[in-house]
């Protein structure tokens, strides 16, 4: 009981008494940052939340390979496909089942790429990912994934929200809701260059959770990583002679109005949101400015090289956000079309292009996190919305019902 009463309410009372005793609110200005901190304890939903269990992972980086990379051509080696290549076999293809309720014969299609074993664990990796292959001993491969969606839209929603047709919060929103954020000057859930298709914002939406847990989109698919910035973060030309003077005016006007209101906590939350915005504006742009990153680090991510430059920048941004204390970071390799990047129905060899574009950046991210000790408590998750069937539809290859992902912290007891 004593503890409870000395916690939040007393802080709030003290501050209110202090404010009431100062005539024109300059006491507030002087103590603005202190006040913000204290008020956060009352009103800020993003403060770090003590967990019921102490998890080893502190943050998540999800590398979303939109379109469904073929697991059988990347990390899930199926040598038997070589043997039966071209033969017809019955498969319970979910799409065919949904349409015809029949199990049909399908033509088996062998791997287009050769596999080798890597690391002490001996994990097979196809020649598509020579860089990631060097990190297999740090990775855990989950090969039993299942989805209920039979097309990109529902599967993408299923993976992000757990539902193909109901509106549910994104996994990132849940993580932020459960754990809060470690950096109050940055959004706690950031999605880099998300796709506008296949559910678009619903994939980073808070749904029925409070709006504070919504994912913050930085840039969007189809534009370059150089343009990926948090919206409205840059002060623009109206701020003459200085935005600081204008912000001070706002603080004073709000303080006057607050004094004349009933000094309700709801209004305080609004005043605090300006303080947070001001802090974000001062601190966040630095995250997106790579000029202080040494050349050898940038090269590790493939920045400055043809093909890997753009995704490399996204991965480096992810590391910088992770370092700054952002709880959940999603890096999207996608586009806005109905058949997104990794969706090679008609032209499987194009997998090579996307593998090339992402392999070095992902390996660079893993290595960089490792050398900074961040891999110890960062869950890096790589995957698409589904995998691919081991059979071909004419020249096409597709599937549902399986997808592969991997993440590099097997020691966290995922088993």
């Amino acid at each position, binding site marked *: 009981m004593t503890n409870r009463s000395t916690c939040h309410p007393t802080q709030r009372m003290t501050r209110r008494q202090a404010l009431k005793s100062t005539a*024109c609110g300059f006491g507030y200005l002087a103590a603005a940052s202190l006040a913000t901190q204290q008020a956060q304890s009352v*009103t800020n939903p993003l403060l770090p939340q003590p967990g019921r269990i102490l998890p080893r992972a502190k943050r998540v980086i999800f590398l979303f390979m939109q379109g469904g990379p073929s697991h059988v051509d990347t990390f899930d080696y199926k040598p038997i496909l070589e043997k039966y290549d071209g033969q017809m076999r019955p498969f319970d293809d979910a799409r065919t089942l*949904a349409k015809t309720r029949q199990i049909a014969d399908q033509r088996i299609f062998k791997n287009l790429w050769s596999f080798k074993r890597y690391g002490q664990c001996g994990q097979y990796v196809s020649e598509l990912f020579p860089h990631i292959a060097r990190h297999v001993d740090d990775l855990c491969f989950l090969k039993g994934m299942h989805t*209920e969606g039979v097309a990109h839209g529902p599967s993408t929603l299923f993976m992000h929200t757990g*539902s*193909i*047709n*109901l*509106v549910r919060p994104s996994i990132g929103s849940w993580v932020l809701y459960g754990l809060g954020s470690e950096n109050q000057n940055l959004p706690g859930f950031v999605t880099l260059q998300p796709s*506008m298709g296949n*559910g*678009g*914002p*619903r994939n980073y*939406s808070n*749904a029925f959770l*409070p*709006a*504070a847990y919504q994912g*913050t989109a930085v840039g969007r698919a189809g534009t370059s990583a150089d343009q990926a910035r*948090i*919206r*409205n*973060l840059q*002060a*623009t*030309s*109206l*701020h*003459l*002679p200085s*935005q600081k*003077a*204008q912000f001070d*005016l*706002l603080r*004073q*006007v*709000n303080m*006057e*109005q*607050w004094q*004349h*209101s*009933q000094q*309700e906590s*709801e*209004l305080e*939350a*609004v*005043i*605090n*949101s*300006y303080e*947070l*915005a*001001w802090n*974000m*504006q001062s601190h966040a742009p630095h995250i997106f400015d790579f000029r202080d990153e040494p050349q050898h680090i940038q090269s590790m991510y493939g920045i400055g090289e043809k093909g890997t430059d753009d995704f490399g920048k996204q991965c480096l941004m992810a590391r910088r956000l992770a370092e700054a204390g952002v709880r959940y970071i999603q890096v999207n390799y996608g586009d*806005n079309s109905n058949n997104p990047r990794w969706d090679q129905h008609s032209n499987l060899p194009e997998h090579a292009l996307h593998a090339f574009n992402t392999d070095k950046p992902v390996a660079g991210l893993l290595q960089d996190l490792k050398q900074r000790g961040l891999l110890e408590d960062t869950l890096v998750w790589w995957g698409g919305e589904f995998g691919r069937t081991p059979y071909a539809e004419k020249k096409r290859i597709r599937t549902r019902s399986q997808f592969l992902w991997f993440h590099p912290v097997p020691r966290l007891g995922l088993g």
Partner: protein
Amino acid sequence: MEDLQNELANLNRRLTLLENQGPVRQIAMAVSERDEITNVPIAIRGVLTNRGPIVPRGALQVINSHPPPRIHENQSGRLELAQWITDPRHPLTSRVIANRVWAWLMSRGIVHSVDNFGTMGTLPTHPELLDFLAHELIRNHWSIKQLVRDIVLTRTYRLSSAHIESAYQADPSNSTYWRMPRRRLDAESIRDSILQLSQSLDFSYAGNNIEAGTNSEYGYQFNSPRRSVYLPVFRNNLPEIFETFDFADPNRMNGLRNSSAVAPQSLLLMNSPEIQSQCLSAAQCLLQKSELNPDQQITDAFLATLGRPPLPSEHDLIRSFLSQYPDPDSSQVLWGQIFQTLIQSIDFRYLK
């Protein structure tokens, strides 16, 4: 025979011509009955592939105030269900909508959990009032307009939101409505008010509200200066200001919107180029009123933005802000900043 065929061809040509010249028919999406009418299995937890037992068409059995719909074997039952729902004896329909209208006007419902009536929701704070409003709604032929009129003409709706210490001590949560709850400006009102400040709000009524040539919601640009009620609502693409200020998610049923105070809202009001350009236009409008002296300018700006004259202290703050930059060339920018400051202030974002 040949004559007939020629005549037919002529008539068809005329028909095509007339069709092309005729007025464009309005088209709307609607549902139609399928050829084969059948009962379907329940989709457990809403998952289509998760099939439970076949459930005959019908209505909630716990509601026994009036007979359940009788559905003919060869009909879907949509009509009968609609009639059952809108039957004046239905205990929920009129109360749910009356409660929502009350909540939209008064910031909270008589039943606080507006989307959840019954054992899983909260009890009504004023059950007789809810019954009265629901009854009036039915009596007035389900007229929402009349219901709104009934509520806004009450003494309660017209109460000030001012603080009264004795009342506050007796009822701090205002559950007896001793004052009007403070109301937050919603996304549409913020947008419309800002457009109105710069005198660029388009008040025109009716007509098409989607830009010609639109074939996808993705990438749609919401450039129209029309009132917010005329902006199209797409499932996955909302105007930025709507998305930021808690507009209802178009994918969800939602009786009462979120009411959040988060940094992206502040950033939008601080840095959005559109907001800044509207504020500059508002400044231009003000400076064009050459008959105003500096003090009157301040009063005018407050009246336009907050609907009230400035407090003496606010007046002094604006004066001293202006006096720091006496250069007349900077006056439009300065006034733009003042308008921007006022739309960020809590008195703009909340109605007293």
